[in-house]
């Protein structure tokens, strides 16, 4: 049963490279997204969502605190929901989520594309995708 025991190697023994950092980032960004979504839910309740929104509407807001996600609800005053503060929170969630997601796509692609050149193409495409999705998403959030 020794094989099931965990090993604790120090960083110098394990080696620190970009993939290790991204492995760690994937875990940390998962926790960060949990925190941001919880923050959005609490924020919605503080702004009075209990009276004008159902749970699905609160979830839609929490997963991306963007004012277009509350427009179809009975919230009478959208001003607090469209503040620079919530646009920044939405922008942060977008950047964390897109970095987490695009790196996940690279991990999946690496399982099917094993050649050196193919992996270079995947990495180039992933950088293009990350930059364009982040830019378009930030534009949508800040102009809505």
């Amino acid at each position, binding site marked *: 049963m020794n094989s099931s025991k*965990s090993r604790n190697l120090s960083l110098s023994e394990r080696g620190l490279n970009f993939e290790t950092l991204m492995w760690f980032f994937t875990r940390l960004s998962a926790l960060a997204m949990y925190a941001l979504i919880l923050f959005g839910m609490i924020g919605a309740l503080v702004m009075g969502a209990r009276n004008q929104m159902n749970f699905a509407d609160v979830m839609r807001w929490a997963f991306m605190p963007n004012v277009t996600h509350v427009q179809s609800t009975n919230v009478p005053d959208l001003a607090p929901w469209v503040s620079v503060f919530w646009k920044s929170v939405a922008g942060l969630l977008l950047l964390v989520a897109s970095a987490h997601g695009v790196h996940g796509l690279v991990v999946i692609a690496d399982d099917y594309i094993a050649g050196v050149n193919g992996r270079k193409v995947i990495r180039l495409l992933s950088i293009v995708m990350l930059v364009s999705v982040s830019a378009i998403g930030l534009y949508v959030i800040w102009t809505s």
Partner: protein
Amino acid sequence: MGLNRDVSLLTGLRYKGQGPMLTFVLHRIGGLGMGIFVTTHILASFLGGEAGAFLNAIYENWAFQIFIFFCALFHAINGLRITILDLFPKLIEHHREAIWIEWAVFLPTFGIAALVITMTALGG
């Protein structure tokens, strides 16, 4: 360089990875589903017009909402399990029990939500 695993799709499908393999596959499906959904959703909001309305009509469909809720909820709960086990490696000895806890959290949460979505969609 390059790896040559020399494993056919059929052999891959017959791989008996059991519970951990199932969570791995579902985590991947959930991640891909959300990646495609979120990207097209952002593009639809950016484009607007007829193309945007067409894409919005797809994800406002109740069947699609059950699918995307499955993707998001499973990916989130399974991701939390992976994060906890990876950040506290001593817990890896209990990784099978962790998967059972994961299902115990996921199945009722998803089941109730899917039931409510379906009942609302069917008018009742």
